[in-house]
Every structure is written in C-alpha cells, then in structure tokens.
C-alpha cells in the first residue's frame, strides 16, 4: 500500500517542471552547508586535537611577541627570547624543568634537490628525554639523537616520501643543510602533525652554531611539578618575564600559554565559525521549506481535477493527504540528496586545497554514512513539514468542486 503511494508520488515528482525544482535550491544550499561543515569541522577538530596531542596539561609555553602569537615560532619581529631567561625561570619552585628550544628555517639539499624546511633543536642531558616524551617522538628506523652527536640528524616521517627530495631519505644518507653535511641517524615515527613530521632534529649546540643564533631561542617550555596550580604557575612565569624584559602589565611583548587553553581558544573559535554557518544553513533550510510549501500549493491546484477523480474512485481524505505529503517529503529529499553530493564535494575540495597549501593531510573531510543518511532523513522531514498545509488542503477538497475544476 505504502509502496504504491510512494510510486504514485515519485511518478508525480518526476513530471515536475523545472520551475518547481528550482525551489529546492534553499534545501540544497542548506544541506550542502551542513554536510560540508560537519564533515570538515569534525576533520578539523580531530586534526587540531592531534596537533595538540603532544601538549600535556602540565606544560606552559613561552614565546616572544604580543598576545598568543600563533604564527610559526620565531617569525615575530619583537625581541627574541634569550637563553638567560631559563636560569631565572628555573628559580620558580613549581617549575620542574625549563627548556629552551630553537626552531629555525633553512634549506637542505639532497638528491640534487633543494628544499626549504624547519630545523628543531634537542636539548642535551636529562632534558632530552623530557622533550622526547613531550613531543612523543620515537624512531621508526635507526635511533634518536644522543648527547655529543655532531652533524647527525633525525628526520621526520614525511622525509620517507618522495615529495620532498624526489626520493625517500634513508638512515645513513647524507643531507646538506646550510652548507654543512649531516648524517641521517634516524627517521621518526609518523606523528600526524605536519610540522613535526616535516622537521629535521639536531642537537641544540649544533643548531646554535649552524644558524648563528647566539643566545636567542624560539620558545621556552616549562614543565610543572606534579599537582601544581597551573594558573598560579603561569602568573609566576609572567611576573619573572615582565621583570626580565622590563615591561609593564598589559604591555607584554611575550606570551605565556597553557597548552590546554590554546586548544580551547582554537576550539571555541572553530565553534563560533560553525555556529555562524549553521545559522546561515538554517535560514536557507527555512527558505527552502517555504519554497516547497509554495510549489506544493501550486501542485495541489494543478491537480485539483485529479484529486476529484481519485476521490470519486474511492480515495479517502487520508489517502490524498499521504500522497501529497510523500511527494513533498521526496521533493525535500531530492534537494537534500543534491545538497549531500555538493557538500561532500565541497568538503573534499576544501580538504584537498588545504592539504596542497599545508603539504599535509591536516584537514580531512570526515563524511560518515550516519551524516549522509541523517541529512537525507532531515531533508525528507523538512519536505514533509513544508507539505503539511498543502496536503491538508488537497485532502479536504470537496470531490464535486474538485471534479468541476477546469484545467
């Protein structure tokens, strides 16, 4: 029975004029936006989380530059951090370790190809293990660095791909960095973080010399002792920093960030963007729904005579109602289907552009079956809701009046 009605409704639907299909644009835009957004948003969220995986709650990061500077470390023009700060910060009792790190950009040559990239420093002594642990770095091939390694490097996992030098880097290869030859002693396991997977690691003394850094460092990482109030520790650090750099409250030329806060800030920004797009999507869905109501009224009017005929041959009001409601729901669902296809294409396209720009699969489009199915069901429901009043009008038509209706 239901299937027969479905068939009749589909039959009506496929005979529609272009004009009535155009009214689905609202539904289609709305669903496309929702699908693309949820798809990308989830992908982005998990990507961001993975970026911050290495940042545990007991870590505070200090960088030069005002307010949470989020560009590549060291790219800011303000006075760089000095290594002398480490000694001052170590005086804070709640700080277990204070570690300075350098991140420098430079060029590397291998297989007759030159690539621009980042080098990151590894501290000597017992701080080395802390950094290794913090970043979660492990060797996939070869070994990690140790104290006294001169002109030896560990490279990120992306170097195993062809796209940096045209051929994979292997343990034992020699790579030229800034005019000096380095031996690759290890290749790191994949971390899923495009910066870490593309970095070259060398000991800090080697890096300082190679890049002529003097006392400048890119960032200082403070690891707190167990069960320390992180906010208080952050304040103590800021106090020391202000004193050392001779700046007043509110005029800081540095930033002190709790790893967790950074993640939250980013997440809430993302949330605001998503909320905005959801509002736009809701508006287009409402407009789309009104469009469907409108075409359904037209359709009911056009089919007045058929409604009369169907009643004359035994259709109950309920049958007519179901027929038109189904048609309306299917109209919504058709819009939703196009929306899903466009939304998936949009999400994949944006993810692709993103990966081209960043050289990594940081942004992924995660479009689950549940999302697609849910959107389809949702657009069907919107169609049905939009079709209720026209379907009631059709159902309530007086058979004789409907039959008298001239086309």
């Amino acid at each position, binding site marked *: 029975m239901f299937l027969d009605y479905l068939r009749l409704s589909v039959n009506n639907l496929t005979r529609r004029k272009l004009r009535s299909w155009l009214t689905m644009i609202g539904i289609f835009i709305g669903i496309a936006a929702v699908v693309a957004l949820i798809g990308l948003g989830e992908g982005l969220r998990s990507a961001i989380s993975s970026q911050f995986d290495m940042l545990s709650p007991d870590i505070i990061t200090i960088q030069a530059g005002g307010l949470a500077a989020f560009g590549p470390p060291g790219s800011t023009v303000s006075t760089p951090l000095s290594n002398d700060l480490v000694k001052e910060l170590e005086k804070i009792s709640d700080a277990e370790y204070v570690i300075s790190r350098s991140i420098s950009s430079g060029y590397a040559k291998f297989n007759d190809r030159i690539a621009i990239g980042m080098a990151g420093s590894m501290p000597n002594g017992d701080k080395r293990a802390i950094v290794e642990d913090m970043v979660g770095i492990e060797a996939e091939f070869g070994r990690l660095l140790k104290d006294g390694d001169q002109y030896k490097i560990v490279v990120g996992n992306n170097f195993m791909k062809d796209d940096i030098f045209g051929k994979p880097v292997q343990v034992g290869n020699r790579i030229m960095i800034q005019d000096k030859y380095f031996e690759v002693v290890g290749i790191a396991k994949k971390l899923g973080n495009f910066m870490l997977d593309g970095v070259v690691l060398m000991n800090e003394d080697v890096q300082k010399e190679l890049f002529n850094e003097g006392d400048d460092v890119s960032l200082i990482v403070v690891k707190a002792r167990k069960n320390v109030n992180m906010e208080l520790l952050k304040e103590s650090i800021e106090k020391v920093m202000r004193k050392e750099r001779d700046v007043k409250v509110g005029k800081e030329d540095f930033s002190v960030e709790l790893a967790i806060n950074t993640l939250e800030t980013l997440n809430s920004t993302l949330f605001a963007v998503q909320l905005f797009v959801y509002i736009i999507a809701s508006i287009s869905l409402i407009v789309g729904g009104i469009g469907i109501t409108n075409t359904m009224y037209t359709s009911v009017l056009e089919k007045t*005579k058929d409604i009369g005929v169907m009643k004359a*041959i*035994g*259709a109950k009001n309920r049958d007519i109602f179901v027929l038109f409601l189904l048609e309306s729901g299917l109209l919504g669902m058709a819009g939703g289907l196009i929306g899903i296809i466009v939304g998936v294409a949009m999400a994949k396209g944006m993810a692709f552009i993103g990966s081209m720009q960043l050289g990594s699969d940081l942004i992924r489009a995660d479009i689950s079956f549940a999302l697609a199915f849910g959107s389809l069901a949702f657009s069907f429901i919107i169609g049905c809701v939009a079709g209720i009043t026209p379907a009631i009008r059709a159902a309530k038509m007086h058979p004789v009046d409907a039959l008298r209706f001239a086309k």
Partner: protein
Amino acid sequence: MTNKETIIELKDVWKTYKMGAVEVHALRGISLKVKRGEFLAIMGPSGSGKSTAMNMVGCLDVPSKGNIYLLDKDIAKMSESELAKVRGKKIGFIFQTFNLINTLTARENITLPMVFQDYPKEERRKRAEDLLKMVELDNRMGHKPSELSGGQQQRIAIARALANEPEVILADEPTGNLDSSTGERVMDFLTKLHKEKGTTIVMVTHDLKTARHADRIEFLKDGQIVPEKEAFT
C-alpha cells in the same frame, strides 16, 4: 422487475446552492428508485440537475434536504471515510470528459481504484489485464491517456469503473464527448455489461438515441422529475 431489490432510493431530495444572497435550487424534491440489474437513463435539458443528482447517488455529495439510500443505508449518516469506501467499492463512475489520470498509463489507471481498496498486488495485476481484454485494449496497456483516442480513453474509464466489481455504474454523459460511431462502440460495451453481467447502470444523456439502450428513461426539468412530454418544452 418490480419484485427486484431496490439498490438506490432518492426520497424528496433537495439540493440548494447559496450564491451570496441568492439560493439556487439545483434539485427540488426528487424521488426515484433504482432496482438491481436495471439500466436507467436520465434525460433533461442542460442545467436541469442531472449531474447534481448523479453526484449524490454516487456519494460525492450530500443532499440539502431529503434522503438518499444506497443499499438501505442513508448516505447522509455516513462519515467521510465510509463514503469514500462506498465510492470505491459499490460505485463505478464514468465521466463525460473521461477523467483518466494523465500521468498514469492505461493499466495504472485501471489499477488505481484497487490500490485505494488495498487489493493484493497480484490480484490487481490479473484483474487489470482481464479488464483491458474486456474493453479490447490489452494492446494499449502501457499507453498514457494522451496517446489514446477519446473512444479508447472512455473504454479505459469503463474498465476502471469496473475494477472493484461495483453494484452500480454511474455514467454522466459517457458519449457526450465522442462522435456518434465511437459513442455507439462505448454504448455497446455498457449494454453488453448490462445484458451479460446484469450490472446496474444509471446513465445521464442528452441524446434520445443513446437513451434507448436503457430499460427505462426518467426526465428531469428544473430539478424535478417530469413526464416525457413536458421535459423539453
């Protein structure tokens, strides 16, 4: 004939349309009986109330005053869904303008009344094919109404009217839109139905020649039943 069961009875039926302040009496106290197996023709000038009367017999409309009994049940006392069920099961409509659903094929049009009565699919299919054979259009079952001639469309409409094996066929000027020879062909089917299957038929017509196929003719004028000689004066 008189001892046969009455299947339709109109008792002092009035139908009044209110057009603003003006009242139009389409029917003014009609009383009429239709017996099982009878072929009744209703004649009368345009606007005399023939279609109005037919629609009420067909449970499409209810009287303003008076009663209509279909198999001894007062249709005024039936609910919307009961009326729909009666229309679907007990009555087969044939219209002057055929009124097939244009988007459906000949076969689907014939199947539609059975769909509304929840017939099993296999039964529907079989019955639709038998009916198509009966109206000699089984070679046209996949055609849309627009691909059929007027006479063919009306034969499909006859097949559709018969789909649920109704007690009575109501035909409102079934040949009104057809030329005389095509009209004759359609009338042949209706007469055959009446003679061979004993189907009860009530038919409205303008044309005396068409009316002669019937057992009995009633004349309507200004919403009342009148003797033949008064009808067209």
